[in-house]
């Protein structure tokens, strides 16, 4: 694959996109997991699929190519806003927003898939990821999203930490009003950026599995973020290599590698090679 990286643009685009996804998905996934919002990623990924199918349908309708990633990003952000709105409508049952938006996304996908013709081949790539489908435009979009996510986390790390750790205290400090809103938009962007490589159906795995693994062997929040990124990048690189050599969709291999890492960390944790230290005397 290393030789192919130098020879073929599309392999290089996929590899760089994968590295960006392997960085930003676990980074933002850290906040998703500890805020117990893992299912939001699934809901938004299905809405993104709705946006992609809409883009393909629109292209066939107007006879002009529209990059489905752009319509996917727009739908994903709109879905994020919808989830936020529904969470306030159902204040005591906030998780209801997730199945509502998820079913809306699937319904839209089915609708536009039925309306658009000749989409089946592309659909497989969107659902499970593709090593050959990343264009130079996609790479630029994914890179821009990567930079936005890194800036967001760098500048708002302390606010995100507090909102994640203690929402009530963050409310008292009057810093919760718009941070969550921005966060959910960033989640939508990360899903759009990652789905080209991992696929819509598996994108949430890249956001949650590396974090779930890192949680077993880290004791501080910073360590959690660093280890999540290391696991995410390892899964993406190993998964892309396997995908290239076995000629299968990268989504499956990346997630399987992530699951292997998770199993390894659980075993390590069980046998006592863990960080959390000894129980502390109550002195």
């Amino acid at each position, binding site marked *: 694959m290393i030789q192919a990286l130098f020879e073929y643009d599309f392999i290089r685009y996929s590899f760089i996109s994968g590295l960006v996804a392997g960085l930003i998905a676990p980074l933002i996934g850290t906040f998703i997991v500890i805020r117990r919002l893992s299912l939001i990623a699934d809901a938004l990924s299905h809405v993104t699929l709705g946006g992609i199918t809409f883009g393909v349908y629109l292209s066939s309708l107007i006879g002009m190519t529209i990059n489905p990633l752009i319509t996917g990003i727009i739908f994903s952000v709109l879905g994020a806003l919808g989830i936020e709105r529904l969470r306030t409508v159902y204040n005591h049952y906030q998780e209801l927003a997730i199945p509502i938006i998820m079913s809306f996304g699937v319904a839209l996908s089915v609708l536009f898939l039925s309306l658009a013709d000749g989409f089946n081949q592309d659909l497989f790539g969107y659902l499970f990821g593709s090593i050959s489908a990343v264009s130079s435009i996609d790479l630029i979009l994914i890179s821009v999203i990567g930079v936005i996510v890194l800036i967001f986390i760098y500048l708002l790390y302390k606010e995100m930490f507090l909102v994640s750790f203690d929402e009530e205290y963050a409310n008292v400090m009057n810093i919760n009003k718009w941070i969550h809103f921005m966060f959910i938009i960033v989640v939508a962007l990360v899903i759009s950026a990652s789905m080209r490589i991992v696929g819509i159906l598996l994108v949430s795995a890249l956001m949650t599995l590396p974090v779930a693994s890192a949680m077993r062997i880290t004791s*501080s929040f910073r360590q959690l973020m660093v280890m999540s990124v290391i696991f995410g990048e390892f899964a993406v690189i190993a998964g892309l290599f396997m995908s290239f050599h076995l000629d299968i969709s990268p989504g499956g291999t990346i997630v399987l590698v992530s699951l292997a890492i998770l199993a390894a960390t659980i075993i390590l944790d069980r046998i006592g090679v863990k960080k959390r230290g000894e129980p502390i005397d109550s002195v």
Partner: protein
Amino acid sequence: MEHPIFELNNISYIYRDKMETTPALKDINLSIHKGDFVALVGPNGSGKTTLIKLILGVLKLQSGEIYINGKSLRNFHAWQEVGYVSQKSNSFSKGFPATVSEVVLSGLTKAKGLFRRFGKEDYRKLDEVLELLNISHLKDKNISLLSGGQTQRVFIARALINNPSILVLDEPTVGIDAKHVKEFYDVLFRLKEQSVTILLVTHDIGVVVDHADEVACLNEHLHFHGTNHEFKNLGEAELSKIYGFPLQLVSHDHERACCE
């Protein structure tokens, strides 16, 4: 003339569900001045936590006005001057992957302002406050491994790291053993000497009457607000009326306990 730190005028609050309404507070008027140590007591469901949430702006005012340092709550933005320890501090952090340092430092988030990261000065404040609460040795420990008393001290440290001029504590000693409760009150006394205004919500009236300057007794209405000496002199009938069940304050060698 100096404004009261907290001034509550005609505060009422009703919880509304689809089918029913539950009044929590009625016509509360209360002033707390700089350097006061006020204990807010009352039975379960008496509206203590509701009142604290209103004061802190977590719940929206339905009627009445609250002033903090002379500023209407609606225009008050200096929340970095307020330290807060919540009732839930002892229970919600379990399993969270964060160290004591990270949790305590997060108390500086508002004061630091947006887009600014923690620096040397912040880490110096961290060391100072950990020292003050005798938890320096726990600095790098995971918060989920601490005992209840240790966890509570971590949250008090988070509230204190910014040197607040106002400290609001909602039942902070629940689940803490007697030794650490004493240490906790020692810290409060040191803060009081530095003119920090303290509003402490507690069930433990036997202890607070010996520690707080003033006691405010709440049960939907504000039934009593006066010095701790005046509170001690309340008759059994009056206390029982406030609490809704037979109650008396019993003294044991300078310590007083609350008995049903």
